[in-house]
């Protein structure tokens, strides 16, 4: 009892203050086939501080799958279907065209109208109209970018999602959440002791994470809605590596209460802990398959850290990685067909790798040197990870084919431990 009091006194904590810190994104590399699209400034959007079409175009460009065709010079600028002269756009090389308008309603709300047009076939592909609060301008722009992305690539757009990560500045650690484009960062937790391993609940409303504020790793679950948090696991020894089950009811966690680091299952309210793995070595970094039936994890039971898979009840563990002597930090892809992990390459470089489960085929995706904690975007097309540049921790993203690369950095501090959040419920 005394022991505990003492330890708590050493750390200071802030729960959910609304601090802001922008992440800047730089794109390097691009997709094999970029769709040329022109996003024409919406009528009336100049009254909005950040506009709408600039956000849409930046989203599409960042994906690496689009080439933004500059609409400047086309007169008159089309905002309605009747104003579109398709040959204007074909001569500029645009295959697709987005037009629209923003109307200020008497009740103070905004009406955003948007049309997506196929400039080759000269037909309308989609049309939407939203009545929104002024605070939702960026969110609406992301939604429109998602619609364009879906319509033109056939995959789900992830521009409306969020990411979680840790920023270390001096001796201050902050768990932050930001939009997928790095905008609107908010501090969820600040501490003078390390925070690691943030993990999104499947519905995006809670984060599980590991905090060292009590001089040892303890797992907490914090609501992003209320800011309130509860202790999920503080057993004797270490409590770490939380991973949610797809239904959000349980988490796989790593405890040392029975000796070495082993994987356990615990209910999301902290009750009913049950041991899943039984090895004499280290078992850690669990990740649930999207269907909830299996768990991949890191284990050194065979002598070196490798990726294994077992059933969600802990039976039938099988080794999945055989190349290299250091394979760690596995994360399932959203379709459950592959997984990403970190592989040590040539003894000193740590890179993001991707392995197909059926074929066992493995591909190293990055050429950075100190990569850590990769996770998939919810559409499986991009992976977010931490790496180092110029001696500082930054976030980076790479497409699952390795072609598109992005870097996300803050003005100051080390950014690390990212996890891409789930799709928002529509």
């Amino acid at each position, binding site marked *: 009892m005394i022991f505990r*009091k003492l330890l708590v006194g050493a750390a200071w904590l802030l729960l959910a203050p609304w601090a802001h810190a922008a992440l800047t994104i730089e794109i390097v590399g691009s997709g094999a086939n970029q769709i040329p699209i022109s996003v024409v400034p919406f009528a009336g959007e100049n009254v909005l501080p950040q506009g709408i079409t600039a956000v849409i175009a930046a989203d599409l460009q960042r994906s690496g799958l689009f080439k933004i065709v500059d609409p400047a010079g086309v007169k008159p600028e089309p905002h309605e279907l009747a104003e579109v002269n398709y040959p204007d756009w074909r001569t500029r090389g645009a295959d697709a065209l987005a037009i629209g308008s923003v109307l200020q309603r008497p009740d103070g709300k905004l009406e955003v109208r948007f049309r997506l047009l196929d400039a080759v076939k000269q037909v309308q592909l989609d049309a939407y109209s939203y009545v929104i609060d002024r605070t939702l301008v960026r969110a609406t722009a992301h939604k429109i970018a998602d619609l364009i992305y879906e319509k033109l690539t056939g995959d789900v757009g992830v521009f409306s999602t969020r990411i979680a990560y840790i920023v270390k500045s001096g001796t201050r650690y902050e768990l932050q959440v930001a939009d997928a484009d790095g905008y609107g960062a908010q501090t969820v937790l600040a501490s003078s002791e390390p925070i690691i391993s943030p993990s999104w609940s499947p519905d995006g409303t809670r984060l599980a994470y590991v905090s060292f504020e009590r001089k*040892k*790793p303890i797992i907490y679950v914090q609501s992003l809605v209320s800011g309130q948090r509860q202790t999920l696991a503080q057993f004797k020894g*270490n409590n770490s590596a939380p991973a949610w089950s797809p239904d959000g009811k349980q988490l796989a966690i790593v405890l040392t209460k029975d000796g070495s680091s082993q994987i356990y299952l615990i209910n999301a309210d902290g009750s009913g802990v049950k041991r899943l793995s039984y090895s004499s070595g280290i078992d850690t*970094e669990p990740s649930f398959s999207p269907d909830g039936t299996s768990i991949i994890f890191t284990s050194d039971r065979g002598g070196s850290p490798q990726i294994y898979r077992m059933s969600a009840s802990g039976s039938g563990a099988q080794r999945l990685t055989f190349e290299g002597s250091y394979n760690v930090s596995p994360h399932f892809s959203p379709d459950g067909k592959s997984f990403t992990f970190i592989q*040590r390459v040539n003894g000193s470089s740590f890179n993001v790798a991707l392995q197909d489960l059926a074929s066992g085929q493995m591909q190293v995706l990055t050429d950075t040197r100190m990569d850590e904690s990769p996770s998939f975007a919810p559409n499986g097309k991009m992976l977010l990870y931490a790496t180092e540049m110029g001696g500082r921790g930054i976030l980076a993203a790479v497409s699952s084919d390795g072609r598109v690369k992005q870097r996300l950095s803050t003005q100051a501090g080390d950014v690390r431990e990212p996890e891409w959040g789930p799709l928002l419920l529509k």
Partner: protein
Amino acid sequence: MKKILFSTLLVGLLAGCAGQDVKDQPKAAVEDRTAQGADAKPAGQKSVTANPLTDPSNILSKRSVYYDFDKSDVKAEYKPMVEAHSKYLTGTKGAKIAVQGNCDERGSREYNVALGNRRADSVRKMMNVLGASDSQIEVVSFGEEKPRAACHDESCWKENRRSDIVYQGE
């Protein structure tokens, strides 16, 4: 108050065995007596001139075990020190320690938490063999999160592959 007396009678030497609430009081019994040495000790207690846990000439003041890369076995050179702490725990049933495992910065943070745990656990196992009880020892890991040395090469990494023995209250 009860807690303060209890600690004092137990050893009188275990600096900071009582909690912070005790420490913060002016002239906290335990600390003062330790600092003043034998004169202030309760009658009948063995006379000691300094806290053996902090006396630089006492092996108990040594607290760190260092490891080779990717290794967790306690090297021979640290055995006398681990033995001394084990003996101290056996002879001082009220004493409790945390063995804190640490790693260098390379590789996965979570795997390093596990590796740090294995390192610290190798110290615990050695202490167990020598008679110290598990109830006196908590093995925890800081992974790579709390490096003692900050540079990014082996000169620092070897400092950071380490277990520290920390007595309750320190």
